[in-house]
């Protein structure tokens, strides 16, 4: 669906993309993660043919964005960080305008506009000017606009970064519905790791224009945190020198103590009973022992730490 091969892009003296290589497969929700300035928006703009790359090759639907940009944009939809709606026009007028630009035939457009307004719960206020809408509503209109021409590919660039938690959740729920029910490919750029964890099948982590890692969250976790992570909760007080007392525990890779809680990395789940025995032997009053998967947030910060980034 999308391919970038060793793509670089420089603005004045700033290198926005530095040899970026990645592939997005049809039907997956792909997350591009990274802090502000990582190169996420630049990647989306390149893929939509808004400007050329300095070097490397890229394609979307097998088309060259620089030469066939309008064809790509006709088959893709985009939701940008700000909704970029015409505030003096109503939601319906905004959608009709974009429908016209996308070449949707007039006889189908009215029905399609009505359908997406219904889907996003906007029908009752569709004739009001957008200026009077809340931020969440505006972003929903923008998402409706992105889906109006039924695109095969949807680019979402920080879709919830300017929203309050409730509106962000509404938009995220809609995105999840779209991705799961329609099976369309979604390219999500975000620095919201919880959002990415909930939505993405595969992720790529970027920093300063460079790709740090790519894969499913489970693959990245296995690569960065081999073995199993166990969360242990204690009743206070925690025995002194507990970390020291556990050092001979079989399969122990690392242990992080935090008040009445410890994160223990073991080589294998088979080492868990031995860990519990060691804790009891050390007079620790164990309340809970729970093997758990590594979060995307932990993966992200581990990657950034390994590449000299800061938490």
């Amino acid at each position, binding site marked *: 669906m999308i391919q970038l091969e060793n793509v670089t892009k420089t603005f004045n003296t700033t290198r926005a993309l530095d040899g970026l290589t990645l592939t997005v497969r049809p039907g997956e929700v792909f997350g591009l993660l990274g802090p502000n300035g990582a190169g996420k928006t630049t990647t989306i*703009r390149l893929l*939509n*043919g*808004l*400007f*050329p790359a300095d070097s490397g090759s890229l394609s979307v639907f097998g088309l060259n964005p620089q030469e066939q*940009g*309008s*064809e790509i*944009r*006709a088959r893709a939809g*985009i939701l*940008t960080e*700000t*909704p*970029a*709606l*015409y*505030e*003096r*026009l109503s939601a319906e*007028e905004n959608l009709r*305008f*974009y429908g*016209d*630009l*996308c*070449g949707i035939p007039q006889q189908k457009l009215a029905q399609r506009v009505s359908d997406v307004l219904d889907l996003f719960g906007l029908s009752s206020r569709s004739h009001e*000017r957008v200026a009077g809408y809340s931020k969440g509503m505006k972003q929903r209109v*923008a998402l409706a*606009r992105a889906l109006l021409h039924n695109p095969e590919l949807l680019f979402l660039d920080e879709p919830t970064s300017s929203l309050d938690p409730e509106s962000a959740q509404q938009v995220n729920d809609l995105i999840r519905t779209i991705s799961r029910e329609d099976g369309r490919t979604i390219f999500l750029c975000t620095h919201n790791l919880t959002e990415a964890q909930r939505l993405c099948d595969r992720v790529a982590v970027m920093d300063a224009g460079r790709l740090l890692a790519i894969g499913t969250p489970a693959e990245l976790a296995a690569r960065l945190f081999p073995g199993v992570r166990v969360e242990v909760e204690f009743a206070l007080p925690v025995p002194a020198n507990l970390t020291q007392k556990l050092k001979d525990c079989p399969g122990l890779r690392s242990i992080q103590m935090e008040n009445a809680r410890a994160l223990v990395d073991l080589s294998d789940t088979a080492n868990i009973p031995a860990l519990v025995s060691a804790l009891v032997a050390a007079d620790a009053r164990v309340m809970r022992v729970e093997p758990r998967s590594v979060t995307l947030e932990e993966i992200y910060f581990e990657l950034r730490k390994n590449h000299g980034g800061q938490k």
Partner: protein
Amino acid sequence: MRISILKAIIKKDLLEVSRNKTAWVPVVVIPLVFFVVLPAFFLLLPRLTFFQSSLSSTNLDPVQVLSILPAEVKSRLAGITAEQLIPFAILGYFFAPMFLVMPLMVSSIVAAESFAGEKERKTLEGLLYSPTTDAELFTGKALAALLPAVGFSFLSFILYTIVTNTLGYPVMGRLWFPLPGWWPLIFWITPAVALLGVLVTVLVSARVATFMEAYQSGGMLVILVLGLVVGQATGIIYLGVFTGLLIGALLWVVDWLLLRVCLRLFSRKVLIGKV
């Protein structure tokens, strides 16, 4: 280039302008003042008693007063009375260059709203991601400013013709307007001036951040019109048929050169950097 895309852009831009009072109020008020109120004043003036008495006491000689005008004008003044002098000279000749304010103003307002306004309201990015080509975007937006400018100018000309002939009939005794110099002015110079207004505003819009800045900077072109007004009033330039055709041709050449610059500037590659 797809006509349906152009129509969509024109329709949307005009809808937006129609909902911006700052933009459309001058478009309605200025033609009313220039092409209805002022002509009515000059046409009704000679019928007022105090004006007639002061006119007779000055022994005004029309031909002597208009001696600064070229021979073509003088020949038209043969047999004119002092009472007919003011509407004929002011509304028929001196007012002609003033008419160009209309296409210039409308095109500058709509183009500023359309080009700088998109940037100011942060809607440009959404438009750049639409499945249109750069040429379609530019042409649609330029036409959205050009068509109403020319349309309003033609409408103002019709209004002006009706006012000058109906209110002027009792004074002039005949349907006397338009005079020959007005034809190239309306159908040759007016579209060229409207396009000039659009193109200059596009260039200005690339450098400024707001609709108002673009409108005010683009509005500097009104100096060009004032130059013609002063030139005509002092007898330096006379906007007759030949001069009108010549000035129009010159303007079209300038338009063509500016269009080339604008087309180079109006690309996604350049515009996305200003979002």
